[in-house]
C-alpha cells in the first residue's frame, strides 16, 4: 500500500489519487478500457469516495478484467459471464451503505447477460453499471458481439448480418433511472458522467463506446476511435457540481444551460449545444436514440435521468445497520416464538 504524503495533494477524505489506483493493466496498449479505468480513478478521487466503501463487480471478458486496474483497496468479485448483476444484487444487500460499481462489456451484458442486466435495471438497484462497449469479443480473439454494427466485416468472421443491440435503448425500455452514453476518447465528458452516476440514487447505466485496438478499431466501425472522433454528437457539455459546492454561473451563458438536481443535492449542469435536449423526458431520450441510429451519430451525454425514482432498497424495510453486521441475537428468533409456531402446526 502506497502512503499518501504531504507533498501529494489529497481530497476531502485525506486520500491521494494513488489510493484509488489498482494493479497495472494487462489489457492491450491503447485499449479504450484503460482510459475508462483512469477516469473511474479520477471520478472516485474527486467524489471523495473511501475505497473501503466501494465494492466492484464484473462478469467475464476484457471489460470484466478492468476492476483489477482501479481501486485496488476495495473489495471486488469477478463473477460469471453475464451474471454479475445477480452477484452484485446479493452482495450489496449485505451492506446497503456501500457503493457498487459494476464493470461489464457488450459480450457480457448484451448476450448471455441481457436478462440479468435488464432485470437489475428494472429493480433499480443502486449501483453504477458500466458497459465497456467495443462490439467485439476480445479475449477469444475477435468475434462479433451483439452490439457490432450490421455489415461490419472482420477478417475471420466475414460480414455481420444482424442488427446491433443498443445498450442505452435496452436500459431505457427497462425503465432505467439513469442512462448515459459516452466515448472512451472523450475523457472529460466521461469523468463528469461517472461522477453524476456515482451521485445518482438508483441504478446508473453508462454505455461507453470503448474501441478494441486489436480486433475492432476499424475506421468504419462505430466502435473505433476514428468513428467516434468523427461522429460524436454530444448532446450537451456536462459539468457535475457536488452538493454543497457553489455553482459558478459565470461559466455559463444565461439560458443555455439546464440543471438536474440529483437526490443527494448535487447538480448536473448541461450546457446546451446544437440540440435542445431534456434528459428528464424518457420519450425524448428514446426518440433521440432512434434519430442517432438513422443518422449514424454517436450521441453522447446524459440521455435520461429520474433522480427521485424509488430504488430496490425502498421495497425492503432495511435496518440502518448493514445486514452483515447483525449478530445472533438479532437473527435468531426466541425459543418462545418457536413454541408458538409449534402450536400453530396442526
Amino acid at each position, binding site marked *: 500500500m502506497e502512503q499518501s504524503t504531504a507533498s501529494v495533494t489529497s481530497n476531502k477524505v485525506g486520500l491521494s489519487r494513488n489510493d484509488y489506483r489498482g494493479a497495472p493493466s494487462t489489457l492491450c496498449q491503447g485499449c479504450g478500457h484503460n482510459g475508462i479505468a483512469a477516469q473511474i480513478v479520477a471520478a472516485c478521487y474527486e467524489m471523495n469516495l473511501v475505497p473501503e466503501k466501494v465494492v466492484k463487480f464484473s462478469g467475464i471478458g476484457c471489460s470484466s478484467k478492468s476492476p483489477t486496474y482501479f481501486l485496488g483497496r476495495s473489495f471486488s468479485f469477478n*463473477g460469471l459471464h453475464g*451474471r454479475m*448483476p*445477480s*452477484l452484485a444484487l446479493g*452482495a450489496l444487500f449485505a451492506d446497503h451503505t456501500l457503493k457498487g460499481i459494476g464493470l461489464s462489456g457488450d459480450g457480457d451484458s448484451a448476450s448471455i447477460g441481457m436478462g*440479468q442486466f435488464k432485470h437489475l435495471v428494472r429493480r433499480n438497484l443502486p449501483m453504477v453499471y458500466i458497459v465497456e462497449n467495443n462490439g467485439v469479443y476480445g479475449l477469444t480473439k475477435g468475434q462479433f458481439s451483439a452490439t457490432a454494427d450490421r455489415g461490419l466485416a472482420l477478417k475471420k468472421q466475414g460480414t455481420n448480418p444482424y442488427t446491433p443491440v443498443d445498450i442505452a435503448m435496452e436500459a431505457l425500455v427497462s425503465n432505467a433511472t439513469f442512462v448515459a452514453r459516452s466515448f472512451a476518447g472523450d475523457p472529460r465528458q466521461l469523468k463528469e458522467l461517472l461522477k453524476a452516476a456515482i451521485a445518482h440514487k438508483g441504478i446508473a447505466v453508462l454505455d461507453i463506446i470503448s474501441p478494441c485496438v486489436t480486433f475492432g478499431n476499424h475506421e468504419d466501425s462505430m466502435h473505433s476511435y476514428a468513428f467516434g472522433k468523427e461522429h460524436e454528437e454530444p448532446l450537451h457539455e456536462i459539468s457535475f457540481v457536488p452538493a454543497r459546492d457553489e455553482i459558478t454561473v459565470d461559466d455559463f451563458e444565461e439560458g443555455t444551460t439546464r440543471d438536474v438536481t440529483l437526490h443527494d443535492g448535487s447538480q448536473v449542469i448541461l450546457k446546451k449545444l446544437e440540440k435542445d435536449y431534456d434528459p428528464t423526458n424518457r420519450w425524448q431520450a428514446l426518440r433521440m436514440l432512434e434519430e442517432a441510429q438513422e443518422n449514424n451519430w454517436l450521441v453522447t451525454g446524459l440521455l435520461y435521468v429520474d433522480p427521485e425514482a424509488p430504488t430496490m432498497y425502498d421495497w425492503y424495510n432495511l*435496518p440502518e445497520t448493514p445486514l452483515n453486521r447483525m449478530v445472533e441475537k438479532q437473527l435468531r428468533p426466541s425459543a418462545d416464538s418457536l413454541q408458538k409456531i409449534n402450536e400453530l402446526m396442526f
Partner: protein
Amino acid sequence: MANQEQIVNDFCITFSTVNGSGSATANTTLMRSLFRMGIPVSGKNIFPSNIQGQPTWYTLRVSKKGYVARVEKDDIIVAMNPTTLAREMTFLTKGGVLLIPDDFKLSELRDDITIYTMPVKKIIRDAEVAPSLRDYIANMVYVGVVSWMLGIDLEMIRLALDFQFKGKQKAIDLNFNVVKAAFDWAVANLQKKDPYRVEKMQGLEGYIMSDGNTAAALGSLYGGLQFAAWYPITPATSLAESLNEYNPILRKDPETGKDTCVIVQSEDELAAIGMAIGAGWGGLRSMTSTSGPGLSLMGEYIGLAYFAEVPVVIWDVQRVGPSTGMPTRTAQGDLTQVNFMSHGDTQMIILIPGSINECFEFAWKAFDIAERMQTPVVVMSDLDFGMNQWITPKFDYPDRPMDRGKILWEADLEKKLKEWNGSWGRYLDVDGDGIPYRTLPGNQDIHSGYFARGTSHDEFARYTEAPETWERVFNRIAKKFETALQYLPKPVLTEIVGAEIGIISSGSADPAVVEARDLLMEQGIKTDYLRIRSIPFGEEVEKFLASHQQVFVVEINRDGQLLQLLTLKYPAQAVKMVKAAHMDGLPLTAKWIVEQLLQEKEA
C-alpha cells in the same frame, strides 16, 4: 356387521377428485381431524402438473402402529371423478369400501366390496350454497359421510376447519354446515356394513403436523437466514412461499421494527443462485431453493462458490427427472448430479433430512456448516417430504449458538495482523484445517479488501497461472472436506442382535424402510439399518459396510445413485452391496422393499 371383525385405526383411504376442485381443503380437514384424535396418519397427494380439471388423488394412511409410508392398495376409495372410476376399482382391496355420488354409474360391479352412494348434489342444493361455490363445497359432502362411516368426532372437523380458514367464521360455517348435513343424512339413510373405524389414541402429544417445505423455511429463519433468492418451480415453490409467510412474523427486529431477512424472487435460477452467492460472499446467511431443472442451471455458479469459497445453502426439493420429467412426482434422482456438481474437480457437502423434523433441524444447521466450511451446502429433500403433510415431533429450538466460522471484522483483523506479522491472505491456511479466514465487504480496515474470483488465485487472492500455486491452493480446498466430517450430521444406526443383512438408505425412503424391516422381522429376517444423513461419508459408513455380509441400498431412482457413490468411496465393499432402486414417481412402499430383499435372498 355384527359378525364382522372391526378394523380400527389401520387402513388406507384414497380420495379421487379433479384438481382445482378444492379437494385439498376437504382432505387436509380429514387428516387434521384424525391427527387431533391422536391417530397416526399420513397424507400423500398424487397430483398432476396442471391447474384445473385433471385427475388427482389424495391418500390418507391411518396406522395405529405409526407407519407413514405409502401402501399400494386402498381399503376405502372416495371416487368423485367419474373418468377414473374404473381405474380406482382395481386398487380397492377385497372387503373394501367405495363411496360415490349417487349419479355415477358403475360399469362393472364387484360383489366383494361395500358401496355407499352419496346424494352430493341434493345435499349441496339443500344447503343453499352459492352456485359459484358449489363445486368447491361438494367435497365437504364426503367429509361428512366418511366421518359417519369411520366415527370421526364432528367437533374435530370443526377444529380442523377453524385452523384451515384461520378463524374466518363465514367460511368455517359454510363448510361445516355441509359436513354436518352430509353426516346427518348418512346417519338417517345409511347402514354401516364395512369394518373400518377410528378410535382416539394417546401418544401423539408433542407431535405437530407440517410439510417439509414449511419445516425447511422455519428452520432457515431460526438459523438466522438473512437473504433468500428463489424462482418458482414445483415442488420447491412452497418453501420460498413459507419464507415469505413467516419472515414478517419471525424476523422483524423488535427494537427497530426493521426486517433482518431479505427475500427476492429472481428472474430465473441463474440469477437466484448468483444473488445467493453474492449475499453469502457479503457475509449474509444466504440460500436458494429449487428442484432438478433449476439445479442444472445453477451448476456453474455453485462451482464458482466452491472455488472462491463462498458459503451458500441450496435446497433441492427433488422431483422426477431428467428434463421436465414428472414435475409433480417424487424422486431421489439428483444425488449424483449434486455430488459432482459443476465442471472440474468439485466437492459438495450434502445434507439429507430423513424426516420433517430433520428438514427443520438441517435448515438451521446448514448455515453453520456453510459458514464454517466456506462452501456450498446442498440440502436434499424431495416432493414427498416437501409438499405432503406429515405428523412429526415438534420442532426443537437450535441446541447450540450459531457458528459464523472464521470471519474477521476490523478489530479481529487488527489483532490477527499483529499475530501474523502484518500479513493476511484470504486463502491462506493458517490453522492447518484447510479453512482460511475471510473478511467481508464493508470492513473499513485498509488491509481487508480482496479480489474474489473464479479464476486461479494464490493464497493472497492474486491472479496467477503458476502450476504449483494452482495445485497447492486446490489441494488445500480438498482438505476442508476432511475437516468438514466433524461438523456433519452422522448416520443413524438401528441394529438388531444377530442381523447379517444391512440396509442403507436415506431421505424420504426412510418410512418405507422402517416398515419393511418390521415386516421382514415377522418372517424371521433380521436387518440392521444405516440411514445416511450427509455426504461426504464418515467412517461409520465404512464400518457398517464392513460388518455386514450383504447390504441393500434402498433409494428412489433408477440407477442406484447412492450405491454408486458408496461404490466409488468404498470399492472393496462394492461386491456386497445390492441395488434396491425404484422410481415411478410415487413414494416407496415397504412391500416393494420386502419383495426385493426376499427375491435377492432366494437367488
